[in-house]
């Protein structure tokens, strides 16, 4: 059943995933965000098995994997994507082993389980989403500058390694929360699609990050609402969120093509 607080949570998750995702797409790490989300599986499983909030387990796994990958990348210079790919499949294997024959729980982890969202749960998650957006806003320009030229950023006194780590931390939190709405398999969508739709319509940064958050919010809200009203015999709203997002993306492609915004 659809509760109002699930709907409000979907809006905030959409805003946070869209906003943080706009940076991930620029960093050419879109697929990293997607693959990283699957790393949450063992954390969710451990949470369920040991009877604590599985999303805290998901976050712990996401962040520690992100830090391990980040460190290996710094030492070996192997590409981030390749390392995330390796970590993702390993996590998937461990996750499925841990779930064993608990297929219902595995399905909820893959596709989200909005029925588990309690009011307190939603309030905490919304608070965390708002905090993640606010902190990201503070470091947004610095991250973009480091993307344009790391030397330029360091010469400007920006501690690039530190802000990258903060960003990874925030991404891990937002992905862990987003899993509740769309599940580990579809969370990459919320990070990628609002951002690329926004990019279709943007020639400057402010509009880009704002539209990305807005499209994330619309996809989350309308997707969950449609699922709540029509149900579609689906036990989870994730696929509807994806469909709404794809419609937004398609519209932006047509608008960009007709108005030649980015060329």
């Amino acid at each position: 059943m659809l509760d109002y607080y699930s709907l409000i949570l979907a809006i905030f998750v959409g805003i946070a995933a869209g906003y943080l995702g706009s940076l991930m797409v620029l960093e050419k790490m879109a697929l990293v965000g997607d693959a990283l989300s699957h790393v949450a599986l063992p954390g969710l499983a451990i949470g369920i098995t040991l009877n604590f909030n599985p999303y805290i387990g998901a976050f712990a796994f996401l962040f520690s994997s992100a830090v391990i990958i980040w460190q290996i990348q710094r030492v070996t210079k192997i590409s981030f994507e390749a390392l995330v790919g390796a970590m993702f499949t390993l996590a998937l294997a461990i996750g499925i082993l841990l779930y064993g024959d608990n297929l219902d729980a595995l399905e909820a982890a893959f596709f989200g389980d909005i029925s588990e969202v309690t009011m307190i749960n939603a309030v905490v998650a919304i608070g965390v989403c708002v905090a993640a957006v606010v902190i990201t806003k503070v470091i947004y320009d610095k991250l973009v500058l480091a993307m344009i030229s790391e030397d330029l950023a360091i010469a400007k006194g920006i501690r690039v390694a530190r802000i990258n780590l903060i960003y990874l931390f925030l991404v891990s939190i937002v992905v862990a929360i987003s899993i509740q709405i769309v599940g580990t398999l579809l969370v990459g969508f919320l990070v990628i699609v609002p951002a690329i739709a926004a990019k279709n319509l943007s020639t400057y940064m402010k509009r880009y990050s704002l539209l990305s958050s807005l499209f994330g919010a619309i996809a989350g809200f309308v997707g969950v609402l449609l699922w709540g009203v029509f149900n579609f015999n689906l036990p989870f709203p994730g696929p509807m969120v994806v469909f709404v997002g794809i419609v937004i993306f398609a519209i932006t492609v047509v608008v960009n093509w007709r108005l030649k915004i980015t060329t």
Partner: protein
Amino acid sequence: MADENGYILKVSNLGVRLQNQTLLENISFNVRKGTTLAILGPNGAGKTVLLRTLLNLIPHTGTIDWTEKVKIGYVPQYVTVSDVPMSVKEFLSIGNGGISVREALNLVKLQEKEVANKRLGVLSGGQLRRVLIAWALKEKPDVLLLDEPTTGVDMDSEEPIYLMLNEIKKTNKITILLITHNIHIIEEYTDDLLAINKCITYCGPSQQIGKPETQRVIYGEPVCVETLRGEA
């Protein structure tokens, strides 16, 4: 201190070793306030490493002695802007303080109306270099470090950029250190020349670059390839 006798920078016995490879060794030179120093050398000679070391981005041995409270503006050779939906105005507004976007663009002879709302990725090579120089000038630096400031610029637009830099240097009393391969530019627009190839191969007035004996020192003795008639 480095400002004794009008020097803004004194480098002494500078060395850089990374992963068991010597990138720079025994580099010593001084830079006078308000002058332009050209840095020249073949590919892999350590020119960019030298600039990055002067910015304290690379661990090194020896001493780098800038005058107290020196402000350094830096223009790197490569930037990634093609994919970033950021306007010129937004780029020049990153960070606090300094001169306004309009003033910065005026300094590099770009019209605010024409470029401020353009995306960085659609600028021409020359416009992008000027915007990067404007960025470096925003906080009123005492020194500009430029790594091949005309990378990606067509030949006709190269000289106007150096002319502009010369003007900025005179009106704002700043010191410039730049990497270039262009001998004409070195002769016309710089005061001193530092040629390196891991170590210093020449250090002296730029005017000397035209002399064959200086070129022999910098580029080494010519090596001629013998070819038989018809095989060339």
